[in-house]
């Protein structure tokens, strides 16, 4: 069955998730993976959906995009998992500097959250590094990038609690 990557953006309001997902149910589509968040009064959803994709007109008031998605194209499962935290004064360039170091180390950011709390800027990222990556060198470069931006950066193995 075909797989589609769908994004849904719109104003956050009570019931919006039920509203959007009921459309997929009505069209017989199956939501396989999804992520949803609220940002500044907006709701953002990204869904991997198998089956028939509803037309954008089925989501009134929402901005919807859809693209074909293949299976097994993700890279998030390869390599070793780490969690990165950066926090410090809000200033431009923190995310790009940090992500640049990770990219140079062969890393992939598989998830990211940033928050501005008053004067404090916080970035948390889930990262995958290839097994052959020089983690110590990446950490040195992250520390240098953080020092240049007045940020504290920690980079640690992700916990896996497999029971």
């Amino acid at each position, binding site marked *: 069955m075909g797989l589609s990557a769908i994004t849904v953006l719109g104003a956050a309001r009570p019931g919006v998730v039920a509203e959007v997902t009921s459309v997929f149910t009505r069209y017989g589509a199956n939501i396989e993976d999804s992520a949803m968040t609220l940002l500044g009064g907006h709701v953002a959803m990204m869904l991997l959906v198998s089956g028939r994709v509803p037309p954008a007109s089925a989501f009134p008031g929402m901005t919807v995009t859809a693209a074909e998605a293949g299976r097994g194209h993700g890279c998030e499962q390869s390599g070793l998992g780490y*969690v990165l*935290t950066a*926090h*410090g*004064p809000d200033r431009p360039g923190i995310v790009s500097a940090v992500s640049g170091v990770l990219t140079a180390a062969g890393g992939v950011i598989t*998830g*990211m*959250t940033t*928050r501005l*709390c*008053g*004067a*404090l*800027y*916080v970035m*948390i*990222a*889930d990262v995958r590094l290839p097994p052959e990556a020089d983690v110590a060198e990446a950490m040195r470069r992250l520390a240098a990038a953080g020092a240049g931006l*007045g940020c*504290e950066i*920690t980079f640690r193995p*992700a*916990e896996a*609690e497999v029971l």
Partner: protein
Amino acid sequence: MFGTAQLLGVLASGVSRQLIGAPHPVLTTRALPVDPVDPGVVAAAADLLATMRRSGHCMGLAAPQIGLGWRLLSVDVSRHPRTRSCAGEFVMANPRLVSASRWERAREGCLSVPGITGDVSRATRITVRGEHPGSGAPVTVHADAFEARCIQHQLDHLDGVLFLDHVTGTRSVHHGARERCDR
């Protein structure tokens, strides 16, 4: 050295200080050991207690949160519903973790990081040793559950570490109350 009555008087007469919020260098710098019988340290311990008492639902504070890079912490979890062990209100100089076991993940926040909370894995059984401000007498606290979490959070502050440095991933960060810190 203070006499007992004098010491109790000093520790009860602290002045509530302004809470420091991140970003601030004092919150990301390792705090320095103190002389527990130094009158300035005893006064700071009293201020820490006074600030903790004033700060509503505050269950613990570390000296860096009132702008002092000293190894002092205060804790009082007696009003928290998840409290099991409870040493009551106490303040400790130069605390150090000497044993820790049984890690569990739970959500926590910080008066110095308003507006955000995070899931952090911490030991639920700990032993902490330190010194009593004023007398300099050794103090040992065995704590579990919420009290253990609270003490470890304060110990992190003394090492210049915020709970943000321990969150378990992007999905472990949550919105929290935007309140408390004075700056």
